[in-house]
């Protein structure tokens, strides 16, 4: 069975990868799951400088989902390159480095620094984090979206994935803008801005007031984001949002995802990525397909 997918010239041995910020590739997983199993690994979003992240509480459970207001704590790019990147690059699977910044210059600078290490295969631009001061705005404003992708593409030869926000009027339009700005792939979707209120304290539950909603709750919305973008763009889509089983992943692929990202369900079932990989393989076999690419987007036919 051929599970290979091609994301902007990078071959993934299978279409499954963690969603940024949900799987650290630490040795703590050694008895459970190994970072060389997914088709690619994806770093937590990094910034130029170190960041503490937001005030706790940072997470809370919601119906079939969770809110997080982590706020991307990171040691900064230099520490990342020294401490983490060699580890990530050592697993023998393509490495996606997710970056974000407070300005267009930050994105460009980071892209350059990451490329110069020679250890990254793909660059993911996190243009859609609802927990940052100017996090989601990149992916909400058509001009900003176009500008940041265009500029980053000018300064780097690394293939670029634009990670978009669902909190827009029509994400398929944003996908099209990302493509026209030169993005090599889009990752759909980041979390939805949401909140929970503690009825006893009569205050927002999260330290940062609002957070990003992820998990099975948003899966039907993520599938639609992929489905509606698929017919508008020809670059690959990394379908992300609420995948909790191989069935959910197959839905994404049938909707048009070339590969899938698995986020919060890594917390719920640390073996989920393995189960999705083998589930997809069995599905293809049971339905007499020879390769994963045969089913990409065929729900449109």
């Amino acid at each position, binding site marked *: 069975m051929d599970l290979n997918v091609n994301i902007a010239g990078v071959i993934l041995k299978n279409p499954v990868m963690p969603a940024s910020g949900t799987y650290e590739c*630490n040795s703590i997983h050694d008895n*459970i799951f190994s970072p060389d199993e997914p088709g690619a690994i994806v770093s937590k979003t990094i910034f130029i400088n170190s960041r503490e*992240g937001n005030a706790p*509480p940072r997470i809370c459970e919601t119906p079939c989902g969770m809110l*997080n207001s982590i706020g991307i704590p990171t040691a900064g790019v230099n520490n990342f390159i020294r401490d983490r990147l060699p580890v990530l690059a050592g697993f023998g699977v393509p490495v996606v480095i997710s970056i974000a910044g407070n300005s267009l210059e930050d994105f460009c600078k980071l892209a350059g620094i990451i490329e110069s290490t020679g250890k990254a295969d793909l660059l993911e631009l996190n243009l859609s984090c609802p927990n940052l001061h100017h996090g989601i705005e990149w992916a909400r404003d058509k001009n900003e979206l176009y500008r940041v992708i265009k500029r980053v593409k000018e300064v780097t030869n690394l293939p670029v994935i634009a990670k978009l926000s669902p909190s827009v009027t029509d994400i398929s339009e944003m996908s099209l803008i990302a493509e026209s700005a030169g993005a090599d792939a889009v990752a759909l979707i980041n979390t939805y801005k949401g909140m929970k209120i503690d009825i006893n304290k009569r205050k927002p539950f999260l330290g940062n007031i609002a957070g990003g909603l992820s998990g*099975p709750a948003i899966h039907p919305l993520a599938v639609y984001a992929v489905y509606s973008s698929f017919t508008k763009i020809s670059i690959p889509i990394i379908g992300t949002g609420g995948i909790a089983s191989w069935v959910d992943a197959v839905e994404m692929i049938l909707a048009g995802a070339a590969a899938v990202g698995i986020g919060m369900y*890594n917390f*719920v079932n640390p073996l989920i990525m393995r189960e999705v990989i083998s589930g997809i393989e069995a599905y293809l076999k049971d339905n007499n397909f020879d390769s994963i690419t045969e089913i990409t987007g065929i729900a449109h036919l």
Partner: protein
Amino acid sequence: MKIKNNLIKPFLTEGRIKARKNEYTGYLDLLIENDKIAEHAMPGQFVMVRGWNSNDPILSRPFDIVQVDPANGLFRLVIKITGEGTGLLNVLRSGSRLVITGPLGNPVEVPHGEKIVLLVRGVGAAAVVYLAESAKNAGTEVYTFLSASAKNRLVCRDYLKNASKDLNIITDDGSDGYHGDARDILERFINKSKPDRIYTCGSGRFARFADEQDRKGLIKGFVFLESHMACGMGDCHGCAVKKRDSGGYYLVCKDGPVFPVNSVELD
């Protein structure tokens, strides 16, 4: 203050409920069959548990490992029924299967040949039983102050009795033991007996008390912290607790759950 990350790598594993009891209404005592946890868990560690197939509730629940019996491949959890997840665990019968990730967290160092105080309230008692037993075995004298609102909330009482040189019961309503505030009798004890360390769990007031005593240089204080958790293994960064002096956060699941009391911000 740098905390040692002495991590045992966790397993994703299944456990069968061997026995369950509700000694007090609202509290569940589970004896679980699982070789891996029984063999590898160390004091201060916890497990993430789910006992349902649904995604509502979706997150696994963290519970301290109360006792282990490696010879028989058993370990114990003691659970206060507070909400949805614990409610679902409470309706499971013997023979039911749980999905367990663990052992998790940074084990607490077991003091050898010292004199220690355990100051715990309510289900916080569950956190220190394993430490008490291990410390006792290491020749440490364990003085336990077990507080609760009333007699029928004195969780883990027998387990702690066995492991302690002295078990002091304190209740808010006087239904058992000392009627009043544990800190009063404890302060006298510390001044008189000069114990080496104090561990608190289950009460912010107790943690602040330990902190004061620690600050005065009378005793070294430790606190068992809780925090909402999604992954339990350092992936989600959800369980942050503010570092006291330096900036930034510890992760309760990875750097804790037990912290030197002076290293974290207490609220």
